[in-house]
C-alpha cells in the first residue's frame, strides 16, 4: 500500500510541476512576490534576534544596580551623600559614583557620550575616544580636540588612543576623560555624580536590596541589570512585533493576491480539471494536486526568502535596514552582527508566511476541485 501511495504522490507531484510550468508567467510572478515577503520578514526577524542576543551577551556584566536621582521627574545629579546611604544598606557590596553625560560637538554635528572610567582613567588633558568619534573627527592619537566648556571657555584634549573597532557596538561614541576634565567641562561640582552604581553580594537578593535602597532614598529611581537586559529583549521584541503588525498589511495584501491568483482560474485550467475528473480523478486527488502546487510554491518561496534574508543580514550587513537604524545618527557603529538563529525563529517565520498563504488558497482550491466532471461533455 505504501509503495502505491508513494508512486501516486510522485505522479501527482509530476503533474503539479508540469501544471505550474504550463502557467509559468503567473506562477513566477507569484513566487517572486512571495519570496520578497518572506525575505523582508526574515530579515526583520533575524536582525532583531541577533541584536537582542548580542545585547544580552555584551551587557551581561554591566552594573547590577544603577541609582539615579530624580527632581520633579527629571534626572538630576546625585549627591555623594547618597553613596554612604547606599553602602549602608545590608547586602550591598560596593557603591560608586559614575560621571557621564552627552556632549554635542558642533564640528561634527554629533553627540558624544563623555564618561569617566573609574578603572584606569586617562590622564587630565587627554582622552580615549571611540572609533566612531575618531572617524567623524578624523582624529588619530596625538591630535588635539577642543570643546567649549559650560562657561564658554575652551577645553583641549589630546587623543591618547582609540578604543578597539571591534567593540564599536558599545563604544563608538565614547569619549573617555579624566574626572577633573569632566567636572570642568560640564561644571559638575565636587561631591556630585551623574548616578551611582552598586553591586550586591548575593545576586538572588538584588530585588530586595533595590527595594531597601528605594525605601532609604525616596528621591531616586533604581534600574536593575535584569531590567536593562529585559528591556533590550522587549524593546526589540516589541519593535519587531510592531514591524510585523505593520508588515502584516503586506502579508494580508499578499494573501489577497494569492487568493486572487488561486481563484482566478483560467478557462484552460478549468477545462483541465474537468478533464482530470472526467477521466477518473477524484475530487480529493485534485485537491491534493492543487495543494502540492501550493506547497511547491510556498516551500520554494519560504526557503529562498529565508536564505536570502540570512545572507542579507549577516553577510551583507543588512543594507536595507541601515537607513532606518542609522536614522540621523552621525556616529553609527561600524559593526557586523554575529549570527544567531534558532529554531523558534525559523518556525515562527514559516508559520507567518506559509500559513496565511495556505489559508488563502484553501477555498479557491476546493472550488476548483469541485468542477463538474461532466462539464467536458457539455
Amino acid at each position, binding site marked *: 500500500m505504501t509503495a502505491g501511495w508513494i508512486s501516486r504522490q510522485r505522479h501527482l507531484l509530476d503533474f503539479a510541476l508540469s501544471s505550474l510550468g504550463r502557467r509559468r508567467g503567473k506562477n513566477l510572478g507569484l513566487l517572486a512576490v512571495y519570496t520578497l515577503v518572506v525575505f523582508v520578514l526574515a530579515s526583520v526577524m533575524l536582525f532583531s534576534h541577533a541584536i537582542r542576543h548580542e545585547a544580552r551577551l555584551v*551587557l551581561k556584566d554591566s552594573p547590577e544596580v544603577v541609582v539615579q536621582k530624580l527632581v520633579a521627574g*527629571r534626572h538630576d545629579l546625585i549627591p555623594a551623600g547618597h553613596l554612604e546611604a547606599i553602602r549602608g544598606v545590608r547586602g550591598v557590596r560596593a557603591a560608586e559614583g559614575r560621571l557621564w553625560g552627552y556632549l554635542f560637538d558642533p564640528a561634527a554635528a554629533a553627540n558624544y557620550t563623555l564618561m569617566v572610567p573609574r578603572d584606569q582613567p586617562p590622564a587630565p588633558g587627554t582622552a580615549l575616544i571611540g572609533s566612531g568619534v575618531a572617524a567623524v573627527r578624523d582624529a588619530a592619537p596625538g591630535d588635539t580636540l577642543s570643546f567649549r566648556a559650560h562657561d564658554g571657555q575652551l577645553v583641549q584634549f589630546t587623543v591618547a588612543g582609540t578604543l578597539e573597532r571591534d567593540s564599536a557596538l558599545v563604544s563608538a561614541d565614547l569619549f573617555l576623560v579624566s574626572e577633573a576634565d569632566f567636572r570642568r567641562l560640564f561644571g559638575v561640582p565636587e561631591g556630585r555624580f551623574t548616578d551611582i552604581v552598586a553591586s550586591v553580594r548575593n545576586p538572588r537578593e538584588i530585588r530586595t536590596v533595590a527595594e531597601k535602597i528605594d525605601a532609604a532614598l525616596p528621591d531616586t529611581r533604581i534600574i536593575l541589570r535584569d531590567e536593562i537586559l*529585559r528591556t533590550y529583549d522587549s524593546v526589540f521584541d516589541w519593535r519587531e512585533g510592531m514591524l510585523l503588525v505593520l508588515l502584516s498589511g503586506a502579508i494580508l495584501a499578499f494573501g489577497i493576491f494569492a487568493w486572487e491568483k488561486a481563484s482566478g482560474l483560467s478557462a484552460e485550467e478549468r477545462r483541465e480539471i474537468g478533464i482530470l475528473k472526467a477521466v477518473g480523478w477524484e475530487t480529493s486527488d485534485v485537491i491534493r494536486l492543487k495543494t502540492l502546487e501550493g506547497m511547491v510554491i510556498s516551500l520554494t518561496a519560504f526557503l529562498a526568502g529565508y536564505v536570502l534574508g540570512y545572507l542579507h543580514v549577516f553577510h551583507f550587513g543588512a543594507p536595507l535596514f541601515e537607513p532606518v537604524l542609522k536614522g540621523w545618527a552621525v556616529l553609527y557603529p561600524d559593526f557586523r552582527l*554575529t549570527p544567531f538563529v534558532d529554531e523558534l525563529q525559523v518556525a515562527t517565520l514559516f508559520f507567518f508566511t506559509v500559513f496565511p498563504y495556505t489559508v488563502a488558497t484553501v477555498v479557491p482550491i476546493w472550488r476548483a476541485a469541485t468542477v463538474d466532471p461532466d462539464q467536458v461533455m457539455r
Partner: protein
Amino acid sequence: MSPVRPSFIALAGLAGAVAALGATFVDAGLRSAAAGPGLAARGALAARLELTDLALFTEARYTRNPSQADLHAAFQDHPFAFEHFPTGSLVAPAAAKRGRP
C-alpha cells in the same frame, strides 16, 4: 532514455534548499564561535566602563541610553509619542520607564 522526471528535480531542489537552510545554522554556529573572543572583549569593556547600553542609536540623548533615558527629554514629550528621530520608531522608551520605578 526516459528523461528525468520533474518530481525528481523538484525533490532534489527541495533537498538542496533544506540543506541551505541547515547551512545557515552551521554558518551561524561557526561565525558566532569565531566571534566569541570579540564578544567577550566587548563584554569586558562594557563591564569595565560600567556601560549599560549599546551605542546603536546615538542621534538623540534618549535613544543612546534607552535604559537611562530621561522620561521628558526634548522631542519625547510622551512615551508613546511619534518620534522626531527616525530610530525612535525602532527603540521604545525603556520598559523600566513605562511602568515600574
